[in-house]
């Protein structure tokens, strides 16, 4: 496939790995934010091509993994109602809530549809006017424009049977939280290219100024990731801290203004709870007051009561540490033993972008013991 295959070229990958080896002189800890990049790193063994000075640690960039358990429980509760059809991205279905998952509800007859595009929910709401269509709106900045468009189109069509559980998350507040933590070890970031495709990278310039840590906007193929690492290492070795853009074929500084405008029209910033991490200020989106009638939690407040305030994470799941890059998946005592993709204890074992799932798939326990 064009713009994919050529960025997986083995010779280019080797050239880049060599350039990194020739540039590096000191030990550096680099975090890739995005689960898609984690997946590529583990799948293609890119970390194993790097010199021992560089350690890559995996960040919180898996929206499925950080969606709070209270939102999952709300989706489960609503999907169990006889007049509700719940639309969700496929990988949310097996994420454990406090007592159940959406797949369990579906097995008991709940009407749950997996969607590829949020606009599918629009068609469903039009063709099934007697049913309540609830959209489980999760994702990073990349996905937010699609949900904003859904709300605007539903408004335009005068639909009254469509609503959203909004559990969106934003990347920059997460980077800020990691850098502000006294335990922080990260010295440079690979920023998620597709988030920046939408948002640009002006917001990262402020982070770089405040924390003096270089950030490179990076794509998702092996050549992209290694070039991103090289661009970071060059800055680190030179004692510089700027935002550089490796992914120029898709990202410019301003981002997609049209998409940003859509998001700003429909949503406003608010605090958001990240599963395993906690609440981060301004890290989430919520519907603006004039779109409040699309808020599923308000519309079904009576059915959601008593609130699911007493939700519990499974204590043997260390996803919080994994999501903050403080524990590698295979270092979790439950990894591949009590926690597998068939019986996940935590969200990072479910999602295709979850670090635990990537390790399970590409680094089964025997090989990961050899070299992390």
């Amino acid at each position: 496939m064009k713009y994919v295959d050529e960025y997986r070229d083995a010779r280019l990958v080797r050239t880049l790995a060599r350039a990194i080896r020739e540039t590096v002189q000191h030990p550096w800890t680099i975090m890739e934010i995005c689960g898609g990049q984690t997946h590529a790193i583990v799948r293609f063994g890119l970390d194993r091509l790097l010199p021992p000075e560089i350690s890559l640690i995996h960040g919180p960039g898996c929206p499925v993994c950080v969606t709070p358990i209270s939102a999952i429980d709300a989706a489960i509760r609503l999907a169990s109602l006889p007049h509700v059809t719940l639309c969700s991205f496929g990988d949310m279905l097996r994420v454990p809530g406090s007592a159940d998952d959406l797949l369990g509800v579906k097995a008991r007859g709940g009407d749950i549809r997996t969607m590829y595009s949020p606009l599918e929910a629009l068609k469903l709401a039009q063709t099934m006017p007697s049913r309540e269509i609830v959209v489980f709106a999760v994702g990073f900045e990349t996905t937010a424009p699609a949900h904003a468009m859904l709300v605007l189109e539903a408004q335009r069509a005068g639909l009254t049977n469509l609503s959203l559980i909004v559990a969106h998350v934003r990347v920059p507040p997460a980077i800020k939280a990691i850098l502000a933590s006294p335990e922080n070890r990260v010295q440079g970031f690979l920023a998620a290219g597709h988030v920046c495709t939408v948002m640009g990278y002006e917001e990262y310039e402020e982070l770089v100024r405040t924390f003096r840590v270089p950030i490179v906007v990076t794509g998702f193929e092996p050549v992209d990731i290694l070039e991103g690492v090289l661009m970071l290492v060059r800055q680190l070795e030179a004692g510089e801290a700027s935002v550089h853009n490796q992914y120029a074929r898709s990202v410019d500084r301003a981002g997609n203004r049209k998409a940003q405008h859509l998001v700003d029209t429909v949503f406003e910033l608010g605090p958001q709870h990240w599963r395993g991490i906690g609440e981060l200020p301004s890290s989430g989106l919520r519907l603006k007051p004039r779109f409040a009638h699309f808020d599923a939690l308000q519309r079904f407040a009576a059915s959601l009561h008593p609130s699911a305030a007493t939700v519990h994470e499974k204590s043997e799941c260390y996803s919080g540490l994994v999501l903050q890059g403080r524990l590698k998946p295979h270092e979790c005592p439950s990894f591949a033993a009590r926690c597998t993709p068939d019986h996940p204890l935590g969200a990072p074992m479910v999602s295709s972008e979850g670090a635990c799932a990537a390790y399970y798939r590409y680094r089964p326990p025997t090989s990961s013991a050899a070299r992390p």
Partner: protein
Amino acid sequence: MCLAIPGQIQYIDDDELRTGLVSFGGISQEVCLALVPEAKVGDFVIVHVGFAISRVNEEAARETLKLWETTQHSPHSREEPSSS
């Protein structure tokens, strides 16, 4: 679900959502092109959850590859500028 992949625009409808057909290595999918008003048939776009979020800049794409293709034939590759 965060996946976004490049595909080539084959057809654009003139409806409100600027719906189009995008081919991903032979498999075609309906995509909303409203967020990339500048994109034309034949262009490559990055698609995420049924929405094109950017048009691929061919020149920038070629540059990255060219830089590293020439580097591997050159023994003095260390000081090559980055593609940013």
